[in-house]
């Protein structure tokens, strides 16, 4: 074997490398095709994904899509009902709030905040959780015990309570709310990553890589981690929706984004006092949260089914 490779010319070596690369590309492509096949079997997941993508487009192009600026106050139109109700105006499809701002436009701009919150929170929680989880699972021993005990402590507090307290320390505002939520969601990623790493670390392929001389960093993040991704992807999706929910809850309690930010939870908090007078100021922001979270959870369910090899077989 060594003799054969020694006699190979450099040209054939690059050819072999290219062939290997293309084969690995093909394998990835086949995997994605298979994944998409299972994912697309789930009608709800596809609908959820379509809605989510549409929301992303709307959020990105908010200034083009929204009929009004989110903070323009129309003094002649306080609490105008939606267009189909008596007294509605065609200019304000979903009506206006107590200071005459167009609700639809605020919702469209609000989508930016919700998606931004989701992305940032999941990025922080996921990267922090993966690093801690891989370290805990890979090194075991005292490091593992310490990390996991700290996670237990975080999990002993109801998530919203801990987020509230953190915001009390850091001061109310969207950024601090996001940090707090990321910290609260992180232990789930740590636990998942650790469990996956524990089940993988003694597999033959890891031992083989170790014997081939791979260092700790390479073993942790290049060899083991890619094989632990499925549960993390699902958890990331679910965390995306809980981040949106929690941020909205903090906004609702006055501890998240501050008025006049058109964040959906904050809009609800502002609308609360008009609840029995103007149903639309309360209904639409909440509906926006519900539908967005629902769409993401549908995608999450679809991902879980498509990535779970146990369900695949049946």
């Amino acid at each position: 074997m060594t003799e054969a490779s020694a006699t190979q010319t450099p040209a054939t070596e690059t050819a072999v490398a290219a062939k290997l690369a293309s084969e690995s590309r093909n394998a990835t492509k086949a995997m994605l095709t298979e994944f998409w096949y299972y994912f697309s079997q789930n009608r709800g997941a596809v609908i959820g994904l379509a809605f989510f993508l549409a929301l992303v487009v709307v959020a990105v192009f908010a200034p083009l899509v929204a009929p009004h600026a989110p903070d323009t106050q129309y003094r002649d139109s306080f609490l105008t009902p939606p267009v189909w109700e008596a007294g509605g105006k065609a200019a304000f499809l979903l009506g206006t709030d107590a200071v005459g701002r167009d609700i639809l436009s605020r919702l469209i701009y609000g989508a930016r905040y919700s998606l931004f919150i989701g992305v940032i929170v999941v990025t922080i929680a996921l990267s922090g959780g993966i690093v801690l989880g891989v370290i805990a699972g890979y090194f075991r021993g005292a490091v593992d015990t310490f990390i996991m005990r700290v996670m237990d402590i975080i999990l002993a507090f109801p998530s919203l309570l801990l987020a509230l307290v953190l915001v009390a320390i850091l001061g109310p505002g969207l950024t601090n709310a996001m940090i707090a939520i990321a910290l609260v969601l992180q232990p789930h990623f740590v636990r998942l990553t650790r469990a996956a790493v524990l089940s993988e670390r003694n597999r033959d392929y890891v031992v083989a890589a170790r014997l081939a001389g791979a260092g700790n960093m390479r073993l942790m993040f290049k060899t083991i981690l890619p094989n632990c991704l499925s549960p993390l992807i699902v958890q990331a999706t679910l965390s995306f929706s809980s981040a949106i929910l929690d941020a909205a809850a903090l906004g609702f309690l006055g501890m998240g984004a501050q008025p006049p930010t058109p964040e959906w939870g904050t809009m609800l908090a502002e609308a609360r006092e008009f609840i029995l007078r103007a149903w639309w100021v309360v209904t639409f922001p909440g509906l926006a949260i519900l539908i967005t979270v629902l769409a993401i959870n549908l995608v999450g369910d679809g991902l879980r089914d498509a990535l779970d090899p146990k369900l695949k077989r049946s």
Partner: protein
Amino acid sequence: MLRFLVGRIGLLIPTFIGVTLVAFSFIRLLPGDPLDLLAGERGIDPERKAELLRQMGFDKPMWQQYLMYLGDILQGDLGTSFVSKKPVLTEFLTLFPATVELALCAILLAVLLGIPAGIFAAVKRGSFFDQSIMGTALVGYSMPIFWWGLLLIILFSGILQWTPVSGRISLIYFFPQDTGFMLIDSLRSGEKGAFASAVRHLILPSVVLATIPLAVIARQTRSAMLEVLGEDYVRTARAKGLSPLRVIGLHALRNALIPVITTIGLQVGVLLAGAILTETIFSWPGIGKWLVDSISRRDYFVVQGALLLIAAIVMIVNLIVDVLYGLVNPRIRHT
């Protein structure tokens, strides 16, 4: 079983110490020191302040302060509210029954509806019923409950005028609240209509608080049932000639309940977080509303105490659930 229990309690001790550390650090991490917060905008004479800080032990090294704090906790002293001047523990114990009453009603609702719904969906897998139940459950799972509460208020209190908007009982009733549980106290008072009023006040908050646990329990029951229904012992039960009711309701359900009990236990944290929102919306005088009010009033010793107490409750309930789990699972009970 005893070893199992001792092991679980042993695991709780470091976590509890961690929780006290978090609560301890909370006050020290706040911007400014406690007295600035207490004095507010009026300010305070520096000498008087130094004197007070000394009295409260804030001049000592951190580790001594922490040990003092631990000692206080062990004696049941969780500090005093700036606002009411009452001990935090006393306030907590006065308000706690209201939250327990609400949370118990909610979890009862969630279990009594969620488990049958999950079983039914699993047995009729793929049917219209399965799809509707699971669709509804996913909506419930995705629900922003603070909005859901407002929506129900608009419908039932605003349009239909069936239920009151806030509080635990109508103000026209006045009777001693010995147990703190309004349902029990109103019954014991013998006042006409008091119990009905308490029930009507309890309905909407319970429904709101039950929404997410209900959805989670229904989903978990369904998937646990589906897994169990494929097991060999279910086939054995059918091969014995048992009725479908007995096969599903006894042989399958008994096994499916094991993971479901864990799920129910995990809902305690969800319930307490939900109580913060639900009690705020319905002005329910429990610990959730107390906490939010204290944060906005900057009554930080209350927040610190509540933080510790709520974490302790979550830990105790989780311990009880672990024991229950061991009791329903013979593989753990007999090892």
